[in-house]
């Protein structure tokens, strides 16, 4: 190698150290599973099952990546997921019209996100507080309007089920949606004006304002996007289960935050990684299912996920420090 090539090579590695670290971690987890329970992890069916469950986590993790990149947080999305899915379920059940159901589902997600954003920007309440309240409020509201009972939705055999929970060449379509959305979000964050404004708002709000970024608008839009993604994820889970239940979304909050942090997005704003979130979602989603499949007792899940999160964020922080 010539000197210049070598330098470029080092730069490449330098630039992507976090990504390499992540891939190594995923491989290690996989290897661990293969060794502990080869009959499960050497057959393809477990991976196919990941491909239908992980996208629910991933879609919301993508939205949360924008929120964290902006230096904010959202705790309300699991409840939004439940509310939106409830609307989808009840509208679909009473009208049989996919479009109405879809619009009310996504519309509700956007609306709640917008309210979050408005309270954060126009009144100035920290997002952690607003969305904490909203999390209870929306959960309570969906319990009230649903009377706390589950709804079975006649989705089996519909065309829309083929689109949102079917299989394409044997692959669960949810995973293709997730892949497509990840690519879209990558371009939105790193190649689009909106994403640039999100990162600048998270980095230095005052500077962003001085250069003509409408920071309030950007924040409201990002919270709305998060709401839309929660609604979207709710719809996917509804198609997969064909049942809405009042506790839908509970348990997702910590998992999804873990996926984003393990991926390498920092909570200080101004920096974010879509690739990391993509891999992190698979890692967290697969761990949960994998540990059970591996025959380990359930509480191992939490222990190992906890260990992994701590290791991952330590690695990311060290790498970030070295780059400074």
């Amino acid at each position, binding site marked *: 190698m010539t000197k210049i090539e070598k330098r470029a090579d080092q730069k490449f590695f330098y630039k992507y150290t976090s990504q390499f670290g992540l891939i190594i971690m995923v491989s290690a987890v996989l290897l661990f599973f293969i060794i502990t329970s080869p009959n499960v992890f050497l057959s393809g069916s477990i991976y196919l099952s990941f491909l239908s469950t992980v996208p629910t986590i991933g879609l919301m993790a993508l939205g949360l990546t924008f929120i964290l990149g902006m230096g904010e947080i959202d705790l309300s999305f699991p409840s939004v997921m439940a509310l939106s899915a409830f609307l989808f379920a009840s509208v679909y059940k009473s009208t049989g019209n996919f479009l109405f159901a879809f619009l009310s589902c996504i519309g509700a997600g956007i609306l709640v996100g917008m309210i979050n954003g408005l309270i954060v920007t126009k009144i100035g309440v920290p997002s952690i507080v607003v969305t904490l309240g909203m999390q209870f409020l929306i959960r309570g509201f969906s319990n009230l309007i649903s009377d706390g009972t589950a709804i079975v939705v006649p989705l089996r055999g519909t065309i829309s089920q083929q689109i949102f929970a079917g299989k394409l060449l044997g692959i669960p379509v949810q995973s293709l949606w997730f892949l497509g959305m990840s690519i879209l979000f990558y*371009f939105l964050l790193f*190649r*689009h*004006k*909106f994403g*640039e404004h999100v*990162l*600048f708002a998270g*980095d*230095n709000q*005052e*500077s*962003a*304002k*001085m*250069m*003509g*970024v*409408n920071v309030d608008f950007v924040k409201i839009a990002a919270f709305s996007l998060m709401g839309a993604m929660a609604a979207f994820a709710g719809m996917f889970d509804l198609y997969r289960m064909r049942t809405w239940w009042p506790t839908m979304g509970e348990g997702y909050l910590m998992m999804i935050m873990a996926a984003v942090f393990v991926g390498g997005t920092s909570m200080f704003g*101004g*920096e974010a990684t879509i690739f990391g979130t993509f891999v992190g979602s698979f890692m967290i989603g697969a761990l949960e299912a994998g540990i059970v499949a591996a025959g380990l007792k359930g509480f191992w899940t939490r222990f190992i996920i906890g260990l992994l999160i701590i290791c991952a964020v330590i690695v990311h922080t060290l790498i970030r420090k070295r780059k*400074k």
Partner: protein
Amino acid sequence: MVNIIEMKNIHKSFGGVKAIRGIDFTVGPNEVVGVLGDNGAGKSTLIKIISGVHSFDEGEMYIKGKKINPRKHCVKTAHKMGIETVYQEKALAEKQTLWRNIFLGRQMTNKLGFIKVKKEIDETQKIMRELMKFRGIGANAESYIRTLSGGEKQGVAISRAMYFDSDLVILDEPTMALSLQEVKKVLNFILAVKERGKSCVYISHNIANVYPVSDRFVVIDRGIIVGSYNRKDISLEELNEELIQYTKTKTQQ
């Protein structure tokens, strides 16, 4: 020719703090105005009203003869009216790359709003070569702002203003972090603005820098204008003496 800026009896408070208390301020066509005054006098607030960062509470403002509605005036509209500002805070984001900082708010995009990355980077390299004249210290268009030195950051902020050619350039303490040689470059830039028939507002605590490039000086004290001089009527020594007088009366109060 119509004045670039005309402000009449402008007031601005932040909560209880009255930062600007009835200021009349004009910038004529092809005029360089030096703005002087103590820390906290209201200089930055004044120029941020012009550049659209802050609105004003009372009074009237005209830009190029057009009456400004304080509710509608913002950074974007100020940019469109040809006002370019180098802020005291530099207005850069540390974790972002140099090229993104240059074009923030004025990105080159396609119709869908996607950024033409290569074009922005190429343009930034040109800016660095021709305007910043960075002497290859390892900084490039894709460097993160946090990796630059104080002077380099200042250089980025100033070149950004130079690049977006405008009718009024506002410089708020642009020479703070700069070496003598770099200061010279900034002063030459101001003279070049004047030569091109454009106007400039130059804020600095360093009177020796302000004096030779300005046509007129305005002294602000606690939110009001307390003095205004044409350079041809006053020498540097006399101006210095005047400023000392203001400080004296202030401490006596």
